[in-house]
Structure formats: C-alpha cells, structure tokens
C-alpha cells in the first residue's frame, strides 16, 4: 500500500476489510500482474510498475457454488426494481448527468432526498441505480481505488480504465444479489457499468424504471450543438417527465455538468414547482376535464 511503502512498514495482511457475511472472516486480495497500466510516452518507471494492483474487495463466499451451506442467508425484504431515473449525455459543452432523488423500498418512499449522483474525483461523476446500499458501497470502493491509483502512479486513471476496474471488481459478485448499475460520466466520455457484467460506452444513457420516459424526451431534442442552458433544460425536462409518469421516481432533480475544468453542481430543484408551472401552462386543459365526468 502507498502509505506502507513510504513508511517502510511491513505487516502481514490479515485484515478483515468488510464483514460482508457473518460467517466469513478472511478477505481476498487480488494480485494481477496482467494489470500493467503502461502509459504513452514513458516507457517504464521501474518503481511504479513494480507495485501490483492490489485491491481489497468485500469477502466472498468460501465456496460460491454451494450456497445452501451458508447458515445465515439474508433474504431480500422486497423485490428490487431499479426504482429511479438517472440519465447522462454528451454534447459540445461537456457531459450532463441528472437524476431524481427518490429512494423507494417496494411501495414506500424510503427517502425523498437521496444523492444519486456522486463525484468520484474532480472530473468524474457517477450516477447510481439499483440497490442503494450496494451503490453507495461500490462508489466508496471505487473512489478509494482511484485515489490509490493516483497516489501510486502520479496520474489519474482514465475513465475507460476506471470503468474496467469497476467491472473487474464487480465480476466476482455476478450471480449474487449485488445490484449496481452505474454510469460513469467523465468530461468527454460516458460509460455504463452494471453488476451483470455490462460495460458500454455511449453518447446517451438513461438507467432505471423511469428511463423509458426520459429516453423519449432526450431522443427528441438531444443534439450535439446544444448550448449549456439548453442542455440543462433538456435534462431537467427529461427527469421531470419521468418522475411524472413513474411511481418510483420523484421529489427533486439533481444536475451535474462536467467539463474539462471539472464538475459543477446545479442547485437541487423540487419538481413539484415544475409540475404546477406545467399545469398552469396548460390551464385550459385542466378546466375542461370536468366536462367528461
């Protein structure tokens, strides 16, 4: 580890990193010689390339195949349905990431003011969907690994590299109940990483139960040449329409704008106001619904 190298501290790795399952008491550290992050220009920096890419992942099953042998098995209290709307798209002015703020647990709104967009570092923001707990945990793990990489190799890992790293870390949990669908929004790239193993780069992504509603709005008006205000308005409108129709999305909208200078967060906005404004705009329509009863 970086700090250990600096301090010349040698210790046996008998650490219990995350007590993921009560019956587990060993952690797994993965040494991968295959991960030689060679960068263009510099051939080798002997000190840096000798550091193995060691990252500590939460404990796995002792025998992943025989789950029946586990004494403690946690059943899900309610079926997961990715109840959220998050979206991200690229345009000439950078990348916009937007999301609602409702955390739902089955039919209950567990929290109306959750942060679904988290900054990883100054130029990378990640939107989350799936299980809230899993997403929070994996965002922290990712942030830590990225920071460690930066300390060891004296440069930031690229967005594609971050996505690949996250995908590799999530891979051992494929087939388990981990449910994480993150969109990494860098200043010029958008990559979707999912606990099923998908890792896709694209220009526009929307994830969650409200995503079809957002896609309709985005497909219609998105173009490369939007200016910053138009892009922000479009993202807001897309989340608003999704929260209107989807029961599991709602409350407020968070918006991040990532450029080459870094990310900037727009103030959280309550969509209830937007709904009333929209209804007023269609004032005539509201009065006439009484006729048909």
């Amino acid at each position, binding site marked *: 580890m970086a700090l250990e190298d600096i301090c010349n501290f040698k210790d046996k790795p008998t650490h219990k990193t995350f007590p993921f399952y009560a019956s587990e008491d060993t952690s797994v550290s993965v040494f991968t010689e295959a991960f030689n992050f060679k960068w263009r220009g510099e051939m080798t920096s002997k000190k840096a390339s000798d550091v193995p890419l060691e990252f500590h992942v939460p404990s796995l099953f002792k025998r992943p195949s025989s789950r029946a042998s586990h004494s403690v098995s946690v059943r899900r209290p309610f079926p997961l349905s990715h109840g959220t709307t998050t979206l991200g798209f690229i345009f000439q002015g950078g990348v916009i990431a937007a999301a609602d703020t409702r955390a739902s647990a089955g039919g209950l709104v567990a929290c109306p003011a959750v942060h679904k967009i988290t900054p990883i570092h100054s130029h990378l923001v990640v939107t989350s969907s799936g299980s809230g707990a899993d997403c929070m945990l994996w965002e922290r793990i990712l942030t830590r690994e990225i920071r460690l990489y930066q300390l060891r190799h004296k440069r930031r890992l690229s967005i594609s590299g971050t996505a690949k790293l996250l995908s590799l870390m999530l891979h051992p949990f494929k087939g388990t109940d981990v449910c994480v669908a993150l969109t990494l929004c860098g200043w010029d790239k958008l990559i979707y990483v999912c606990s099923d193993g998908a890792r896709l780069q694209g220009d526009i992504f929307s994830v969650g139960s409200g995503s079809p509603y957002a896609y309709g709005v985005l*497909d219609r008006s998105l173009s490369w040449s939007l200016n910053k205000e138009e892009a922000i308005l479009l993202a807001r409108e897309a989340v608003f329409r999704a929260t209107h*129709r989807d029961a599991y999305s709602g409350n407020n909208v968070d918006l991040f704008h990532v450029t080459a200078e870094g990310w900037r967060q727009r103030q959280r906005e309550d969509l209830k106001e937007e709904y009333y404004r929209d209804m007023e705009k269609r004032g005539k329509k509201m009065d006439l619904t009484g006729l*048909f009863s």
Partner: protein
Amino acid sequence: MRQGVVYINTNFSSVSGFDAERDSMRTCLLTFECCCVCDIQKLLGRRSHGSAGSPVPLPFPMAHGTTTLAFVFQGGVLAAADTRSSCSGLVACPASQKILPIHSHLVGTTSGTSADCALWKRILSRELRLYQLRNGRRLSTSGAAKLLSHMLHPFKGTELCVAATLCGWDDHTSLSGPSLFYVCSDGSRLQGTLFSVGSGSPYAYSILDQGVQWGLTVAEATSIAREAVYRATHRDAYSGNCVDVYHVTSQGWTRRTREDLKEEYYREKESRRQTHEAEKKML
C-alpha cells in the same frame, strides 16, 4: 379441443344515457353470445364431463409488444399505433393493423394478444350493431366500453389478454363530443384524455405529456402522435415498422396513409448530419 358455446344473459337496465321511463316501458335485455373454440368450462375452472383436455399453454410469454396511443383534443380524438406484430423475438407481421374501426364513429386500438383483440373487436362491433338496430340509436363510447368490459369479465383469470382504448365521438344530448376509454381484460375500465398502451408506451408518454393540450390543431396533434410513435419504435424492440393514425370527429373517422418510419429515421439522421456539418463549418 371441444367446441363450446356460451350464452351470457345480462340485464342492462341502466345503460348510461338511458332514462328511467324508457326503462320501464322496454325492458332492455341484452343477450350476447360468444362462440369460443376452447373449452369454456375448463377455462372457468369447473370440472366438466371428465374431458382429458388440459389448458393450452402459451407458446411464448406475452408482453404487449406494441405502441398504441390515443388522446382527446378540440378537434376530436386522435389514435395512433405502430404496425409490428411480434412473437417473442420474431416479427410475425410488419404490417398488421392495430387500430380497428368498430363503427363509423368509434375506433379501437388494440394491444395484448392480436388474436384475442381481433376476435373481441368483431364481437363488439356485432353487439353494437345489434344495439343500434334494436334501439334506433348508437351506443355511446362509455356504453360500448362498459359492454366490452362486462363481456370480458367471465374470462378474468384466464390467459385472455386484451387491452384496448375505445376512441369515439358521441352525439347524445347529455354527453356529446370526443370520448376516450381504456378497457382491459383484467377488468379495468378507465375514462381519460390521454392513454398509451404497450411495451413502447413509456417512450410515447413522455413525448405526449410534453405536447398534448386541448387547443391543438389537427396538424399539430397528428405531428405529436406520429413523433411519439416514432420515438417509441426507435427505443422499443417490439414496436416498429409503420405508423397508423386515425382521427375521429363528428363526421366519423378518417385514416391517414400508413407511413413507414424507416423514412422518418433516415430523414432525421440526414438533417442531424447536415446541422452538425454546418456547425463544424462555422467553427
């Protein structure tokens, strides 16, 4: 498979729009029969005559693979739908008709199992025609929706799958004007001003929510409906091919020429490419 004929006698003594006096003078006894090719008794869960027929399993899971929409505005009712019939991953028919006219002033969009929808639309048309002949006037959209809902009710719990929106224009004195009802084989019957049904409906809903208002002109309404179906067909795998648009007014329904959305996709791609090039040149 045994042939079974079921007679369902229902006494509709209070159809919407009917006054009490006429009620007493003429007992309105609506008899409708539906001929079903499968064993109704088995479907209704009663053991009958020791028959060895087991219920026919569905060949593939149904997913309402379609995009249909309808909304009400000052110019009447507009209904639009795509034309793709899918069987799981196969496009069984790229040019099917999902909007079926029921009579001159009533049109129904279909979603669910195409076979069930086609059958029930025909049954509904026949019953409405019989009502018209017996009573000298057309049944209102609300009444037609109620009729369809009650006809479908015995099949609740079976694998029948029909989700239709009835779009009509009523000329009764009490409630005249455009009217839109959603009827589903689960039993729901909802009145509304905007409905979209099918796997592509979320994509269409957001476009419609943005643009649909009472005061639209016919051209604007058609354009929004077309765009909504187009966006849904773009994102949804089970919707696609062409778009049908029907417009119902006091004069009856009119149908717009079927339009292939492939052309629209290429037109949009071309226009985006051109604006992109123009932007690049300006820089």
